[in-house]
């Protein structure tokens, strides 16, 4: 197979674009796609200061690398969830990348703020870790963005993430989520920063190819709580369809975004206000994270804080 651009020997085939590229031209292609997505949705401009949430995995590190090469002003944020072993190794990969590139990196830790890690909060409130984790992550990156004066938060969600959640939302007719799923979430309150996903049209395989070609040292390991996640089942199913019919994932997502109006009525008009405890934006008097932490810490004092940390 030959490179579509320069006709040298190709390395990365991109079947959904009916193309293959050599290492150099693939990087060009990848950067062009990212740039196109940023511009098409006006996610941010060169003058904006972007806060990028990084996990040490291939997607967020590839995006970090791409944004730097495209000349954007970006600061990375690592959220320490306190997950045994995994969080430490994730942080190490982010630090390694920051040290190698000289790019700024901030960290924030759940344990430092609330005295409890994500698995501890989940156990004490009898929830599954991922439910707690998603909510706390969104809370923390918004808080860090506000405090640091960032106007926009970017995440490394890729095409596979987006189509997997689209499929999940459709299978369970989560109309509210469908109304809100998009690569660009504008700010709807002065204390809510906008959220963007510049990789939303790039497959996980393309992000991996970029990371390998750029020799980015990423953490290949999964969070222990991801095992058996339904999102993986959806991704595998979608990739079976993709193999038989290249381009399905991209057209599934693009078609949805084109017809998004269909779900508009399910985006309930909610009144936003500030949490009376922490000041973050919520629809209720006290935000869901403050309520969650109150419950977790109450259980903590009943059982005796840190008396049995493994409980």
């Amino acid at each position: 197979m030959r490179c579509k651009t320069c006709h040298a020997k190709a390395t990365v085939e991109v079947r959904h674009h009916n193309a293959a590229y050599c290492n150099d031209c693939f990087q060009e292609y990848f950067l062009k796609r990212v740039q196109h997505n940023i511009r098409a949705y006006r996610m941010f401009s060169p003058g904006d200061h972007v806060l990028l949430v990084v996990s040490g995995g291939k997607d967020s590190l590839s995006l970090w690398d791409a944004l730097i090469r495209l000349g954007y002003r970006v600061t990375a944020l690592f959220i320490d969830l306190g997950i045994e072993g995994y969080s430490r190794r994730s942080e190490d990969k982010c630090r390694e990348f920051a040290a190698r590139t000289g790019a700024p990196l901030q960290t924030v830790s759940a344990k430092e703020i609330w005295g409890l890690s994500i698995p501890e909060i989940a156990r004490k409130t009898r929830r599954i870790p991922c439910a707690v984790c998603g909510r706390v992550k969104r809370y923390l990156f918004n808080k860090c963005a506000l405090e640091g004066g960032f106007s926009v938060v970017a995440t490394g969600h890729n095409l596979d993430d987006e189509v997997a959640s689209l499929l999940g939302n459709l299978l369970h007719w989560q109309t509210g989520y469908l109304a809100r799923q998009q690569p660009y979430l504008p700010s709807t309150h002065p204390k809510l920063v906008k959220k963007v996903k510049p990789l939303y049209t790039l497959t996980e395989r393309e992000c991996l190819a970029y990371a390998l070609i750029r020799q980015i040292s990423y953490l290949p390991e999964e969070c222990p709580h991801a095992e058996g996640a339904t999102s993986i089942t959806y991704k595998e199913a979608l990739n079976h369809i993709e193999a038989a019919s290249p381009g399905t994932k991209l057209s599934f997502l693009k078609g949805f975004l084109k017809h998004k109006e269909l779900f508009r009525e399910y985006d309930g008009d909610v009144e936003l206000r500030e949490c009376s405890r922490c000041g973050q934006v919520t629809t209720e008097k006290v935000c869901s994270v403050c309520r969650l932490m109150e419950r977790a810490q109450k259980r903590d004092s009943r059982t005796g804080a840190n008396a049995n940390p493994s409980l």
Partner: protein
Amino acid sequence: MKVIIHQAGKREMEVAGGKKLADLARELNINLEAHLVVRGGSILTRDAFIGDEDVIEVFPAISGG
């Protein structure tokens, strides 16, 4: 030829070479939409011919969360 699979640690296996990557992937039940295959530091396209003496590495692209 040797196949090194970077999934949940590292798995290695020995299989007969002398075929195209597309055929090998089908044989090993590896979906090339969800994996990348590397030989000698270079990513391979489906039509790459894999020799009997080759060592190839398989990287899964899909992660959860």
